[in-house]
């Protein structure tokens, strides 16, 4: 399983972020929005079928979050911490390797 490209940001935010007001209200940590786990917005979640995938990377390119990243072999990995479940990846996948299923918690 590949690591998220935002792993360093997530660790830095967890370590350095505080509610204290900074001088001039400057935001010091780049990419600090990773603290918001927007995955809780989701109703339908993408289910990925690795056998069908042709690695065309359309899902990776179109994902607006981005909550899709690439593992060592070049397959997409879905980050369910941030996926808002819009369904663009499933709609655009040319080989139907991604299907949207209702999430049960």
């Amino acid at each position, binding site marked *: 399983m590949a690591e998220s490209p935002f792993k360093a940001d997530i660790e830095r935010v967890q370590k350095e972020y505080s509610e204290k007001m900074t001088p001039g209200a400057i935001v010091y940590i780049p990419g600090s929005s990773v603290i918001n786990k927007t995955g809780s917005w989701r109703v339908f979640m993408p289910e990925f079928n690795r056998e069908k995938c042709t690695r065309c*990377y359309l899902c990776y*390119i*179109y994902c*607006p979050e981005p909550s899709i990243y690439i593992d060592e072999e070049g397959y997409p990995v879905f980050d369910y911490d941030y996926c808002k*479940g819009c369904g663009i990846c499933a*709609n*655009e996948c040319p080989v139907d390797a991604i299907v949207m299923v209702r999430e049960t918690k």
Partner: protein
Amino acid sequence: MAVRKPPITTREYWAPGHAACAGCGCATSLKLATKAFSEAMEEKYGDPNAFAIAHATGCMEVVSAVFPYTAWKAPWIHVAFENAAAVASGVEAAWKKIGRKGKILAIGGDGGTADIGLQALSGMLERWHNVVYLMYDNEAYMNTGIQRSSSTPYGAWTTTSPPGKYSIGEDKPKKWVALIAAAHQIPYVATASVANPFDFVRKMKKAAKVDGPAFVQVQCTCVPGWRAPPEKSIEITRLAIETGVWPLFEIENGDFFNIKIQPPGGGAKVKREGGRVVAIEFKKPIEEYLKLQGRFKHLFKRPEAIDELREQIKAMWKTLGVDVTLPKPEE
């Protein structure tokens, strides 16, 4: 198994956790734009991070920088609605003075570019600053609650152009800022779409590499504002290209006569004369684009309004020097 690599850099400048709606096309456009920009900077200056962003108020500014967080992993400055181009000019002048290599990316929505920031944009282009202006066009003021802008297309519903007994919604044709920018005779002007990401990335890289100002107008979906289902976000913008609603073109040095028009796809027949596109015969009716969006729902009760929209699209293509035929749907 062989390892494959994505066709675009895996460096990220747009972090997840921002507050954009599910299926936001503009978020995709900014993600791709920054990646393309960093690739171009690496090829030109050897430093992928040699750029800074000046961002006008708008949807993408609000969702990406909810205090105390930011979704940006690049130097980024938030400015008022009207002066993204002016601030980008200032940053560029300062970089020139201290001898720093790189390029500035100014980003504005269609309200911040076509209406409020037009004067600052025109000034920036005229003063020949080394800046790329990216206009993400979601065709209304979506952030404040879907008010019409001058970039709203004919017939669209917005809260300030409500359709009813005496109104068909927005009653003015769309203003094409790309053509206004091209009239400044700047090195590079292009329109793009998120539905054609490779074309968009190529145009962004070309814009980033030219010496002097460049302007790119990219169409992207607003899911709540267009009353569209989120998963169809990219499909709708693709239909806009295939039905002729959104042209893909490039104009270099204000040379309208040698305009480069990308073939729209979707079975459309392109006729060329001496390398120049002179006529396009579209195969998909614009109704296919309109019917996916709730903002055009009322037009289907008034076919004459759709015919009027068709005439306006023909007139827009005529400005680009192309004769188009737009089919009507089969009964």
